[in-house]
Structures are given as C-alpha cells and as structure tokens.
C-alpha cells in the first residue's frame, strides 16, 4: 500500500483510534482536532490515484474522493475540526469522556462514508455515524433528550433496515458491491423501483426529507451546540451523498423519480421555512431551516434524475451548496450555543453581527456563498424540460424569500433570548466560532466551482430582490400583527407531524402489545395445559401401581399364564 492508500484509510481510522486510545481521558484540544486532519489532507493533496481498492477489508473495500466527493469531504472535515475544538471547552461535567468517544466515532463514520465507494464500507460508516450520533443527542440527560433520542434511534433503525434492504437487493440482482457498478446497472435491475424506493426512504431519513424530518427539530435543541453543528452541517448531508452514490444519476433519466424529488424538495423547502417561522427556540428554527435547505439540494438531485446529462455540473453544484450550507449552518449553531452562555452586551452585539453573516449567506445575499451556490444550482435549469425550468425559476427565488424570513426570525429570537445567566465559557469557543465565520466568508470563493461566471452587477441585483421582498413582507406582517392587537400566535410543536405519527406508532405498539399480551396469555394457558397434562400423566403412571399390584397377584398371574398358553396354542393353529 502506498502513502495515498494509507492516507485514505486514516480518514476514518484516525478518529476511531483516538476514541479508543483516549476513552478514559480526553487529550488536549489540538490532539482532538487532529482527528479530522487526514481528511483535510486528502482534500488538499488529492492522492494520485483517485480510488484505492483494499481487497482484504470487509468485502473488498474501495475508497476515494474525487470531484464532488472531495468537496463534500473538505467542508465536512473542516466543520468537524472546528466542532471538535469547540466541544473541547464546551462539553463539561459528567459524561464528557463518553461524549468524545461518540463524537470521534461519529466523525469517523461521517468522514468514512464520504470516501467509501462500495456499499458495505459505506453502510458500515453510515451506521457507525448514525448510532454514534445518538450518543451526541442524548448527552444531556432529561426526559426531553430521551424522547428526542428515542425518536431518532427508531428512525435510524428504520433507515438502516431500508438501506440494508436496498443494498442487498441491489447487490443480489446486480452481483456487485461497488457504487459505480450499481449506478450503471440499476436501470436493468428487475426490482429497480423497489430498490430506489428503499434508498429514498433510508437516506431520506438522514437528509430530513418531509415527514422523515421529525427527528431534526427534536434533536437539535437538546444536543450540545457542537453536536448540533455537525448534525446539521455535515451528517444530514450524508443522506444526500447517499442518494448521489446509489441512484443511477447520470446513467439514465428517471422522470418519475426525478419529478418526485423535485416536488418533494420544493415542498420541504417551503414547509420547513413555514413551520420554522412559528417556533420559539432559535435552534429549532435552525433545524427547520436545515429541512428547508436540504429540500433545495433535493431539488438538485431531482434535476439530475430528470436530465441525466446534467450530472457533472449539478452534482458539483449540489456539493458546493452543501459546502456553503454546512459551513453557514455550523457557524449558526455554534453561535446560537454561544448566545446561551453568559455574555456581556458588547459580546452580544458581536454575536449578532457575526450571526448575521451566515444568515445572509443562507438567504442568498449578494457576494455571499449562498448567492454563488444558488446561481450554480440554477445555472443548469435551462437544460430541463420547459415546465420544470419554469417552475424552478419561480420557486427558487420564493424559497430564498422564505429563507430570508426564517433567518430574520432566528436573529430576532437570538436577540430576545440572550441573557447573562448562562454558563461561562472561555475564549477558545469564540475564537473557533470566528474561524468558522471566516470559513463561511472565504472558503466558498476559494473552492467555488470552476466555470462559474464572475459576479456581475445584474447578478448582484438579482440576488438582492428576494431580500428586499422578505424585508417588505416582514414589515407588512408586523404591521398587520400590530393592527390586529398583537394576538398571541400558538406555536407549532417541535417536530410538527411527529405528533400524529407518534400517536399512530404508539397505538400500533399498543395494539401489538395487546395482541402479544394475548399471545403470551395463550402461551401461558398452553404451557399450563401442558403442565397439567404432564401432572395427569404422572398421576396415571403412579396409579398404574394398582394395576401392577393386581397383575402380580399369584392367582391373577397364574391365570394370565394359563391364558397366555391357550392363546399361543390357538394362534399356533394358524
């Protein structure tokens, strides 16, 4: 194995090793932050061979990070790196070691999944990430946390099962475990739609697709800030990556699935924003914003499914969008966390200004990464069939408006909620947060997709109008609200559709519980019956003693002997 092969292997291995070595005592901040260094190194110095095969690992593993994958890997690694440093001073008290073990394992899984190019390896990393993330969510012990954890883990399990099914079916029908071959052959698979459906479900849970998103608004507010940052910034993107790996993107057009993706994506974009607006907790607002943003990326996936030729530019655009979103969202979550600590008024101002930066970026303000990302995504829409192109041209700006409103709401909530009562934090988190802001501003320009047209004045204007519209809408809304006498608006519950879903789940559970109780009772009756039978049989055996006593009486026995002789004699007659 050459150096490149080792380096790729170290991407997931190094965080895992750190977790194992330091499971009792956490090392210094810098050592912790090195966990993500191999991944960054892979991005900065791309190995000569794009992909490396490890025939001895698992069922024959293929690792590599080229093109879009490298972009995914880069921002993921950076977000983890910052989050690791942030967490080092942020997480305190009991369970600190446990948190870091899970944190590092989740990191290993997340980074590993991004470079895994075959199904078993991807699945292994994906599972490692998903299960470890549970430990991040339930770090603070409370009833709310446990509830969020339960919902999360149930969905994870459903997702894992769906993915396993999809992968096994794919591998079984196509005879390969490599994603490239699966993408090639999936169109010919006899159970194509079943496999795709399962993959949509399995990755959709991670990516926070509508209805499957319910864990997000529950998990984010309860998780510590750095955990939320990586959950929302990077882990949910893995679902998206999964789609890009697994679905036959670029190989054949699947109009049905493509339309579904676009529609569902748009629905998520608006639905997330809409529900998010009516929330009271800034972190919940951010979670819904993630749902909304993931919706936009889902639209991107749908575009490729509609028009296979778009695969190269659009997947790059999606990766860039994910990068922009990941950096911005993690900065927001870290900031939202800082807002809950004890801060002075000065610091509060700094915080709000700092938070405004990624907020603007998310809203797609000119000169921000958001603007770049959106235009990259929209650039290829022209190649789509007309009605889709039209729809997207109308819908995406509207989505920007919604996002802008949501961000405004977020800033407002942070402003209202900040107090001096929270726990004290040191300097390091602020520095790291600043670093993340810096990345939000700088990095997209550095790695921005090649061939992106330089920003022109009309572009800037085009980027401005949604912001203006949002501002107008906000003003109108506030005015209307005041006119109406400032009625109190009932807050939508966190996790919105979770309530009916949970009701359904619990009642189904009750039903099965009842039937299983019935089955248990039946079983018990059966067992009792069997025990009764056994007792009766045993009593019968005991009572046979009387018969035996009779049989062994002298007279009876001799008569029997006589009868025996007679019977034999008779039988002998033939």
């Amino acid at each position, binding site marked *: 194995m050459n150096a490149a092969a080792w380096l790729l292997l170290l991407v997931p291995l190094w965080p895992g090793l750190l977790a194992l070595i330091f499971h009792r005592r956490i090392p210094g901040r810098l050592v912790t932050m090195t966990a993500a260094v191999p991944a960054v190194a892979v991005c900065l110095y791309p190995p000569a061979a794009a992909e490396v095969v490890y025939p*001895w690992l698992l069922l024959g593993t293929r690792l590599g990070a080229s093109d879009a994958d490298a972009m995914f890997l880069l921002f993921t690694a950076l977000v983890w790196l910052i989050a690791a440093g942030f967490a080092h001073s942020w997480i305190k008290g009991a369970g600190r070691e446990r948190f870091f073990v899970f944190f590092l394992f989740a990191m290993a899984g997340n980074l590993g999944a991004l470079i895994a190019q075959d199904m078993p390896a991807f699945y292994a990393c994906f599972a490692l990430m998903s299960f470890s993330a549970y430990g991040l969510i339930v770090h603070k012990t409370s009833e709310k946390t446990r509830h969020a954890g339960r919902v999360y883990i149930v969905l994870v*399990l459903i997702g894992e099962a769906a993915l396993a099914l999809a992968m096994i079916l794919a591998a079984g029908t196509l005879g390969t475990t490599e994603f490239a071959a699966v993408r090639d052959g999936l169109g010919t698979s006899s159970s194509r739609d079943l496999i795709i459906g399962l993959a949509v479900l399995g990755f959709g849970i991670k990516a926070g697709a509508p209805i499957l998103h319910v864990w997000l608004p529950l998990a984010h507010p309860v998780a510590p800030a750095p955990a939320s940052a990586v959950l929302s910034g990077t882990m949910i993107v893995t679902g998206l990556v999964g789609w890009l790996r697994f679905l036959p993107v670029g190989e054949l057009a699947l109009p049905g699935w493509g339309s579904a993706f676009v529609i569902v994506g748009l629905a998520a974009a608006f639905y997330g924003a809409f529900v998010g607006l009516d929330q009271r907790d800034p972190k919940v607002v951010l979670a819904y914003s993630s749902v909304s943003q993931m919706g936009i990326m889902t639209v991107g996936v749908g575009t490729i499914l509609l028009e296979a030729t778009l695969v190269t530019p659009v997947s790059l655009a999606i990766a860039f969008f994910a990068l922009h979103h990941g950096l911005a969202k993690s900065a927001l979550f870290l900031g939202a966390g800082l807002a809950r600590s004890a801060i002075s008024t000065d610091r509060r101002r700094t915080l709000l200004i700092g938070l405004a930066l990624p907020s603007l970026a998310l809203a797609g303000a000119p000169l921000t990464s958001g603007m770049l990302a959106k235009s990259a995504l929209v650039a290829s829409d022209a190649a789509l069939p007309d009605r889709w192109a039209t729809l997207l041209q109308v819908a995406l700006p509207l989505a920007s408006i919604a996002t802008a409103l949501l961000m405004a709401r977020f800033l407002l909530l942070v402003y209202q909620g900040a107090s001096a009562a929270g726990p004290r934090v040191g300097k390091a988190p602020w520095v790291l947060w600043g670093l993340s802001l810096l990345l939000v501003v700088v990095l997209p320009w550095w790695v921005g997709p090649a061939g992106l047209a330089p920003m022109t004045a009309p572009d800037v204007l085009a980027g401005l109008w949604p912001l203006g519209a949002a501002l107008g809408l906000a003003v109108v809304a506030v005015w209307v609200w005041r006119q109406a006498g400032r009625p109190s608006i009932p807050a939508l519950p966190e996790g919105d559709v979770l309530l009916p879903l949970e009701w359904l789940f619990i009642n189904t559970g009750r039903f099965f519980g009842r039937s299983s109780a019935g089955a248990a009772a039946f079983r018990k009756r059966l067992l009792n019956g069997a025990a009764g039978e056994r007792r009766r049989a045993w009593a019968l055996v005991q009572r046979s003693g009387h018969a035996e006593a009779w049989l062994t009486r002298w007279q009876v026995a001799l008569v029997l002997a006589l009868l025996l002789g007679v019977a034999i004699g008779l039988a002998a007659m033939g």
Partner: protein
Amino acid sequence: MTWQAALPLLVLASSLLPGLVIFALPERSRTLRTALNLSGAVVKLFLVVWMLWQSGQGVHYELRAALLPGLDLVLRSSELGLFFVVLSALLWLVTTIYAVGYLEDSPNRSRFFGFFSLCVTATAGAALAGNLITFLAFYEMLTLATYPLVVHRGTAAARRAGRMYLAYTIGGGGVLTLGTLWLYSITGTLEFVPGGIVAPFVDRNATALSAAFVVLVAGIGVKAALVPLHSWLPTAMVAPAPVSALLHAVAVVKVGAFGLMRLVFSTYGVEAASGLGLAQGLAVVAAVTIVYGSLRALAQTNLKRLLAYSTVSQLSYIALGIALGGAVAATGGIVHLVHQGLMKITLFFAAGNLAETLGVHEIRDMRGAGRRMPWSMAAFTLCAFGMIGTPPMAGFISKWYLGIGAVDSDAAWVVWLLAGSSILNAAYFLPIVWAIWFEPPPEQWPHDKRSGRAETSLMLLVPTLFTAAMALAVGLFAATPYSPLEWARLIAARQYAP
C-alpha cells in the same frame, strides 16, 4: 498406522484423555487440573490446525472401524468438518480459560471439567464424523456429556432444566436414530458424500425419502433449536456461564446446525433436497424460528434468557442459509456457524462477567454497568451490534451473504425477513445497550466482588475481549484469504459444484 494417519483419533483423544484423568483428580489439585485442561486445549488446537494444514497439502485422513455389517464408524477430514472442528477447538481453548476463572471457588470442579472435556470430544467427533451413524453416536454422547454441566449447580431449577434438556435431546436422539435407520433401509449406506447419497433413489422412493427427511430434521432440530423444539435452550440458561457458552456457541446447538448441513449437503445433497421440496420446507421452519425467537427475546427480563432466545433466532440463519439452495446463501449459512459462535460466546462471557463480578442477572440491574465494567460492556455492545447486523461486525457479513443469496435464489422474501429480524434484534438489544451506557449506575451492586485493579479477573476479561476482537476481525477482514468467509465460500462452492 503412523501417527499421522491416526490424527483424527488424536484430535479426539486430546480432550478425551485429559477429561478422563481430570475425573480422577481430587478436588484440591487445582494446578494440575488447570494444566491438563489448558494443555489438552492447546494440543487439540495444534492438532486441528496441523490436520487442516496437511489437508491443504492434499492429505486425506480416514479412519474406519466396523460397527455393523456394512456400516462403519468413520472419522474423516472433510472441508466442512475441518471448518467446524477448528472453530470448536479454538473456542474450547477460550472457554476453558474462562471457565477456570469463572469456577474459581465453586465445588465439583473435577467433575465439571471432566464433562466439559467430554463435551468437546463429542463435538470434535461429530465434526469429523464420516457418516450419519458416527455422527449419531457423537450426537448422543454430546447429550449425555452436557447433562451434568446443565445440572451442575444442583439446585431445583438446575435439575428442572436438566430434565427438560434431556427430555428434548434424548427424544431428539431417538427420533434421529429412527430417521437414520429409515434412510438406511432405503439407501443402504449412510456415508457423507458431497452431493449426497439419495440421488439414485429419488425417483422410486420420493415419499419415503421426504418423510425420512422430516424425521431426521425433527431429530437434529432439537439441538439446532428449531421452533417448536427449542424450549430447552432458554431453560438451560440456569447453568454457569461457561456452560452457556458451550451450549450456545461451541458445542450443542452448533452440532445441531452442523447436523443440518450434513443432512442437506452430504446426505440428501442440495439437488435432491431442493428437488423434493424439502429444503424449502426447512427454510420456512427456519424463518418462523427466526421471527419467533426474536419476539420471545423481546419479552424477557433475564439477560441470559434473552440471549438464549436470541440464539434460537440467530441459529436459524444457518438453517436458512443451507435451505435456500444457492451457493451464496449457503456461504452465509456456513460462515454464520463461526460468526454466531464468536458473537454469542462474547455475549455470554460478558453476561457471565456481570453475574460473577457484580451479581447482576436481570436486565434491569444492568443500568450503568458500562461505568463499572467498561471493557466487558464494550465487548457486549460490539457483539450486540453484530447480532443486529451492523457492519463491520461478523453478523453483517452473514446477513449480507444470506440476503444476496436469497435474492440469488429468487427468495426475496428472505431479505425482508432479515431486515425485520434485524429490527427486532435492535429492539431487544438497544435498550440494554442504552441502559449500560446512559443510565447512572446504582449506589450498590447486588453482589460486588471487586478484586484488583482490573474490572474483573483477567481470566474472565481476556477471553471476552479476545472473542469480541475476533468477532470484529472476521467481519472487518472478511475478504482476506483464509478468513472464515473465504473458507465458507470454498465449501459452499464444492457443495454446489456441478
């Protein structure tokens, strides 16, 4: 006969003789007993590996002794048999170390280790058996050698469990005898031959062959814990942890599963078994067992009972793999013999560590155990995830191959079954894992025996960690040459060779 040719016999003797000597040892000669035990185990492992290596060189071992006219006792080195015997020899060594540590101060150790050795002798014999009647002989021997271990504690519960164990296994043995004879009366031979012995009779004796198959499966199914013949297994969990390990991973249920393989692969042959519709029937029984075992496990409150039901469920993956009728699925089934063994033995070791060190037997008492015994509980967690089928643990590899094999054999329903079963596995394992790591530990453990700096005696901890590491390694490096998977693939390919 050179000693080379007698190798199969030496393999048996390497545990039989120490066992017999140990019976005669007084209770207090601890060192000698331990030395005998360990040297026997090491020698056996060495011999088995030697035999394996020689077989790789093309040496064929076969020992025959006339038993009946036209029917011999045969010991033979076959790929499948070697596969199993290596597994049991390795796990025996580990379990012996564990048992020495576990039974530190308990009475009747000579008796215990004597029967322990007999058990492994019987298992090795069953693995190397070259025909059905030899297998039957060792099958019965195993039943008898295990009984004293099950009732070792001598309590009322132990005796009840022993009775139940016997009622099932002796009954199973009787049924197996009947089936064997029936088959013999049809075929006139009982040799284990790749491709089976029944092919020439399929046309004329289809009904009788099918019926004999059902009888044979009913006989072997007792040890393989197929529903509804499984009830003895959860009851037998009253035995000490090393015995549970032996029952669940090394010997008893494994011989049952191995017997099913022999039945399908070497006696009936894959073709005849599928052609007569027998394999499909077996697959359905296995499927029912998988689901039923998991459902029952959900309802348990005692850790070892839960693990026992989990075994019931997991073991049928092996039967399922055999029955699906394709090389890939068979690979999954065969390799699960090893994978399930490694994972389940770890789980039982960990459960034993809890019971021995902290006096914890019930699941509700496991809260916070991760803080007190992190290594044991990490091993437990790892293998629990393995049971669920999470990569890169061993269980994933088995399920993956079973699933792909099922698709291959046009039995996609099995894939759904596997997914459902995984969810059920998660449903009963994850709450435990959660309690171990996320619940606060109690003020006072039921029966804390703190000793030394390690969380428990090293004799208990090291085997646990070793098997856990193995369970991880065989999954992580599944594609490496000489891994169990590669080996299973080879064996399966032979069975399905045209």
